[in-house]
Each structure stands twice: as C-alpha cells, then as structure tokens.
C-alpha cells in the first residue's frame, strides 16, 4: 500500500471509531440533562437515580470521545497537509470555531457537572448539564459545516488556484450542512434511545433490584426518543438525498449502482451478484419501479442519470488523466477513475437504511410490549433489546462510510453550480510522508483504539450490571464527614 491508501485507511478507521463515541455522547448528554430537569422540577427520587446512572455511562464514553477527537483535528495537518494548504482559508475557520465556541464549553461545564454535585446550587448545576449537552450539538454543527463544505463548496472565490473565503455565512448556512446536521443529530438520538432501551430493558426484565420504576421510565423514554429520532431521520434523509442528486449525482448513482441513465428510474432494494463495474450489467436486482425518480426529484417520471453518462461528463469537465506529478505516485498521469467503490456505496447505503429501519421497528416494538406497565418475560426480550443497541451505531457508521466513499475520487467535490476550479482529488491532498511513517501511526492508533475499546466495553458492562446502586454511594448516617467530596476520581 502507498501513502495515499494508508492515510485513507487511517482516516477511515479513526473517524468511524471516533463516531462510535460521539453520537452516544451527544444523544445521551441531552437525555441526561432532560432527566435531571425532571428531577429538579418534580423532586422525584426516580429521576435523580436515572440521572446518576445514565450520567455515569455518559462519562465513561465521553472520555473516549474527547481523546479520539484530538487525533481527528491533528490528522489533517499530519497526513493531509496538501489538503490543509488548499482548503485552509475556508475549512480551518469552522474547526477553530468548534474549539473556541463549543468544545471549551463542553469540557469546562462537564467538569463542573461531574464534580459539582452537592457543591453547586441545584439549578446552577442543572444549567451546567444543559450547557454541556447543547455545546455537544454546537460541536456537531461546526464539524458538519466543515464536512459539508467538502461535499459542496460554497462561499468562495478562486484565487491563485486556491479557494478563498468570501462569505462565512454561506459556509455556515450551506444547504448541504443544514440537511446533514438534523440528520446526523437525529442519528445521535437514535443511538442514545436504543442505549436506554437496551440497558434499561435488560434491567426491567431481570427484576433483580428495587429500581423497576427507574428502568421502566428509561425504557419508555428511550423508546419515544427512538421513534421521534427515526421519523426525523427518514424525513431529513429524504431531503439530504434530493440535495445529493443535485449536488453529487455520482454519489447517488453509485448508491444505486445505476449504470445507465433511466427514465423513470427504479429503486434497487437488493442485488444478487457483484455490483462492481463493469459487471453491473449482470446484476439481478429486486427493484421498485419509478421509486428512485421520486426519491431524486419528487416526480415518479423524472430522469435519473447513470454512472456512464456522469463519467463522460466528469472527464470532460475535470480531465481524463491525473497530471504528471511525482507526488501523485502511481497515479501520476494515469486515467482518473470517477466511479466510487460501488460495492461499498451500494451496500453501505442499504445497510444504513436497513439497520436504521430495524432500529426504528425495535423502538416501536418495545413501546408496544411495555405498554401500561407490562414487563415482557420471554427470553427473547433481553437478547432483542441488547442486540438492538448495535443497530443505530451500525446505521450511523454505514451512513458515513457511504457518504465519504461516495465522494471519491474527490476530497473536495466540485459544486456543479459553484465556482469553477474549487475541487480537489483525494490523491492530491495527502502529505509527502514515507509509508513507514503512516504504517507506524496506523498500527499504533489501531492497537491503542482496539485496547481502549475492550476497556470501555468492559467498564460499561460493569456499570450496567451494577445498576443504580453501583453509582450512588450510600450516604453515611452521621454528618461528620461533610467535608468529603461528593464525587472524586
């Protein structure tokens, strides 16, 4: 493998891994703030116990999200220095804003929240929880604004061959970002909802402790959050899809493995055989007639452009061959492959939708079987709800793999209605490193991440088994040690 491939694997591995922690943090933070609000307003012990229990799991997970996030920010400069030079005038701003406006708030107020129990006034402490959790969403906003600019560059002019920012407002209100943000945030809530349902459901079913009301409330809360989140995912996903047909037609053609332009175009549900080009001629696909046309343009009879047409257009507009340049390595002077990796985009798209739908069904199902005080008794229930935790995680990961692989070979995708020349091939973005360097970091980070994944899952499982009692130390009857910290590492 060359530096380009290694750097791409590294970015993929570290990003997918980071985005396992992030959605759980974002979703759970807001849900825990909600629990604490319920406690402050009603004074019910049940809500305090919920806050403490889920808050602890949030912390175990947050630590991992923070440390893996540092790698993300450094990686652009380290492994993608040409990319950083090219986009720096635009792309750095939302990243810096994320740090200054959102991440400072997150980490400071989380510290206050963890250590502020019994020390800060109740309402101030609650405000810290909200400051923290809303800041996580603000973080998501800035990062997605940066990512959306790579998918659909706006607000720039071309000066000396590089994009130069002309309107930060355009970047922050990029319609790609405005569609991606609710979709991604809804995905975060889907994760958190399934987490509450899975763990709360398991405890509810076990009936080993006196916290039945805590677990029931958690399951119902998680179930409703899931239902709302999945409705939002479907709606925002549709909006995003329509934008993508317009802004990145190749990505959507690749999502469907649609070789030829069709009118009306049918939506492929499932394919048998290899979707890799040029074999896509021989793929047997189970399709719904005209549905793709509707998804693309709200019109069952519209034309959807296929890969072959688009390849021709891309060659005409962006060149048939890579320039001859040593830094492009093996790709120097070679023909440009404008088709993304079809098996990945085709199946990534379907797995995203499939796992999402499965998780949505699970949320509805769990609300049904726990209605009006019912507790399911079958052995299937814990397996279903615990297994269900994985589904929105998988849907998120496949969604991101699809959307990032679907923009290849570009790292900055040309905007069809934007400024000419504002685009970059992934192959041009990589740093001039040796393969040894990137191998070193790839192996080191993968090993560390792997080991930490084991530790995190072990700790979460331990705290899950411990229930609420495991996170709420019994209050000493005498008040002699008032000095003790309510929480200490």
């Amino acid at each position, binding site marked *: 493998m060359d530096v380009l491939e290694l750097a791409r694997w590294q970015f993929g591995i570290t990003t997918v891994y980071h985005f396992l922690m992030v959605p759980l943090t974002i979703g759970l933070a807001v849900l825990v703030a909600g629990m604490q609000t319920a406690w402050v307003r009603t004074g019910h012990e049940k809500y305090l116990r919920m806050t403490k229990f889920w808050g602890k799991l949030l912390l175990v997970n*947050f*630590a991992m999200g*923070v*440390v*893996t*996030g*540092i790698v993300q*920010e*450094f990686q*652009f*400069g*380290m*492994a993608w*220095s040409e990319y*950083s*030079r090219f*986009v*720096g005038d*635009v792309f*750095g*701003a939302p*990243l*810096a*804003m994320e*740090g*200054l*406006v959102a*991440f*400072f*708030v997150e*980490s*400071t107020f989380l*510290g*206050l929240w*963890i*250590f*502020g129990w019994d020390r800060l006034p109740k309402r101030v402490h609650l405000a810290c929880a909200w400051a923290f959790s809303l800041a996580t969403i603000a973080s998501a906003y800035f990062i997605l604004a940066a990512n959306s600019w790579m998918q659909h560059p706006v607000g720039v002019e071309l*000066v000396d061959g590089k994009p*130069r*920012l002309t309107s*930060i407002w355009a970047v922050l209100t990029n319609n790609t970002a405005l569609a991606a943000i609710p979709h991604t945030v809804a995905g975060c809530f889907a994760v958190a909802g399934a987490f509450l349902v899975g763990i709360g459901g398991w405890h509810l079913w076990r009936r080993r402790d006196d916290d039945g009301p805590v677990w029931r409330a958690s399951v119902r809360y998680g179930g409703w959050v899931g239902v709302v989140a999945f409705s939002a995912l479907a709606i925002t996903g549709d909006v995003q899809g329509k934008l993508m047909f317009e802004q990145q037609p190749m990505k959507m053609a690749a999502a469907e493995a649609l070789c030829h332009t069709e009118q009306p175009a049918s939506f492929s549900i499932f394919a048998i055989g290899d979707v890799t080009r040029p074999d896509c001629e021989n793929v047997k696909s189970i399709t719904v007639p005209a549905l793709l046309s509707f998804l693309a343009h709200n019109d069952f009879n519209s034309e959807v452009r296929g890969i072959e047409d688009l390849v021709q257009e891309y060659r005409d507009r962006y060149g048939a061959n890579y320039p001859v340049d040593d830094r492009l390595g093996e790709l120097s002077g070679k023909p440009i492959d404008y088709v993304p990796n079809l098996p990945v985009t085709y199946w990534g798209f379907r797995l995203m939708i499939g796992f999402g739908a499965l998780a949505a069904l699970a949320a509805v199902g769990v609300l049904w079987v726990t209605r009006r005080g019912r507790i399911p008794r079958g052995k299937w229930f814990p397996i279903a709800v615990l297994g269900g935790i994985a589904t929105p995680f998988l849907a998120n990961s496949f969604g991101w793999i699809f959307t990032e692989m679907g923009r290849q070979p570009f790292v900055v995708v040309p905007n069809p209605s934007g400024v000419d020349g504002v685009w970059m091939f992934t192959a041009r973005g990589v*740093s001039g490193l*040796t393969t040894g*360097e990137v191998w*070193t*970091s790839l192996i080191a*980070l993968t090993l560390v991440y792997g080991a*930490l994944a084991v530790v995190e899952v072990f700790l979460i499982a*331990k*705290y899950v*088994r*411990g*229930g609420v009692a*495991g996170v709420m*130390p019994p209050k000493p009857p005498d008040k002699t040690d008032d000095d*003790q*910290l309510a*929480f*200490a*590492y």
Partner: protein
Amino acid sequence: MELADVWFCVIAVLWLGYIFLEGFDFGVGMLLPVLAKDNTERRVMINTIGPVWDGNEVWLLVAGGATFAAFPGWYASLFSGTYIPLVLFLVALIGRGVAFEYRGKVDSDRWRRTWDRIITGGSLVAAIGVGLLISTTVFGLPLDGNGNRVGSPFAAITAESLLGAVALVGFALVHGAVFIALKTDGDIRHRARAFASRVGPWALLPLAGLLVLVQLHSGAWWTWAAVAVVLVAAALAFERLSAVREGQAFAALGVAVVATVVALFGALYPNVLPSTLDPAYSLTVADTASSPYTLKVMSWVALFGTPAVLVYQGWTYWVFRKRVSTAHIPPVHVP
C-alpha cells in the same frame, strides 16, 4: 500592525494558555509516583486537576484549530514535518486522558497501578512532545520550497528540539509541584513544596538554556529582556515558596510562562517555521496567513469567544478553589 501579525500573537497566547494550564497537569501526572505515598494521596493529587484537566487540554485543540484557520501553511508544514513525534504525543494524550477517568472505576490495586503508570508515562511523553514541537517551531525543519519536510522522518529530533523537550519536562515538574502545594493540604502539600524548592532550580536550568540558545539564534533586545523576566520571575517563585506563599509562587511561575512565550515567539517572528535548508524557504507570517477576510471573521469569533472562555474557566477554578486533602477523599465505591 497587520491582522496576520495579530493572529501570530493570538496563536502565541493560545500556546501560552496551554503551557500554563496543562503544564501543571503534566507535572501532577509525572509527580504521581514521586509525591504520593498511597492510593488516597494519589487520589488527592489527581483530584486537584480532576475538574479542569479536560478544559485545559482544549487550549491545545484551539491552538491547533486556530493555526489551521489563520496560518494553514504553518499548520500543514509543522504537523506533517513532525509526524512521528506527534503520533507519540497523541498516543500519550489519549492514554492519560482516559486513565484519569478509568483508574478509579475498578477496585483493584493492579488496575490502579496500570492506569497510574499510564498517567505518569503519558504526562511525561506528552510534555516531551509539546517541548519538542515548540522548539522545532522556533529552530525550524529542513523544508523545501513547497514547505514540505525533506530528509528523514526523524528530522525533528535535533539537539535543540531535545533541549526543548527536557526544558518543558523540567518546567512542568516545577509547575506541577507548586500547583500541588497550592491545591492540597497535609503531608503532601509539604512534600510538594519541599520538592519544588529542592529540585526546582535544577529543573528550570534546561529552560534557561533553551531560552538563551534561542536568543543567540534569532533574538532581539526585547526578547532578551523577556529572558531576564523569566529568570527574575523564577527566582521570585522560589523565594515566595520558601515563605510558604504558594499562591504567589504559582503566580510568579505564571509570569515566567508569559515571558517564556514572549521570548520564544518573539525570536521566531516574522517567521512561523524556519527552513534549516535555505532561509528563502522559511515560512513567514505574511506568506502562510489566510486571507484578510478569514482573519477578520476569526477575529470577531476570538473577540467574543475568548473572554467568555476566560470567565467560565476562571469560574471553574473559583468553584473548586478549596485545597484537597486526604480527609476529602470519599471511600472507593464501584459496582
């Protein structure tokens, strides 16, 4: 003064905040096996930074992000040029970050010992990384005309950069010990103060050496003056420490950090990353800066964002201002 020059100062201030704040975090981590005699004392030490270490680390992220936004060429050349040291730095930051959170989550000596080693080792390696990075920034890398490093992946490992690494480790040890003396009570407070008084002057020698070396390399009269301020402030810190005024000693060290950053970044300006191959290839403020519009946008964000950060981070330190002692540490409670 151009906006790009202002942003050069902003980047210096962000590094200043990071070195000042995470400097004592690193020190606390490195001194864990030195100052604490048992698990409760180790917990006392860790809890002095417990509520704040994460917020302190954000200064690094913002320094990185702001360099990307304001000086993309600087960010790209420095980070790709020091790739391997940065990987080690990141792994160390990852390890110590989760270690704070995870060490108390299982009630077993072996478990705690493992994470304590990661905290200590991670703090040491991370401090080395910061020192190396800053020293490399000032002394430069073998950059070609495109700002790319030529030569070996270890080009950033030089005598000067290693001196920078040792200097930062030494400073973090002193800073951490004074911080522990300021934030704890009981035996550990006295041990920390004694350590800082005894080892401190020696531990700051590499920093003094680095500063003088930098000034000989590319100093001006006012950066020499900053070096003098560093020395005076450090001497004052030790004097105040012997008078058992830990707060004043800590403040004096803060002045030393400010002067250190002035001495280093002042000597660097107008370069941001010199080329050791040819001065013509050196990256400068003017040619790596983002467009005036981007800088203007970022200035507004910084103008409103930074005071807010200072206020609420300051408030955190106020909320957790009480000294921690072994009596404050609750018994271990895990599921």
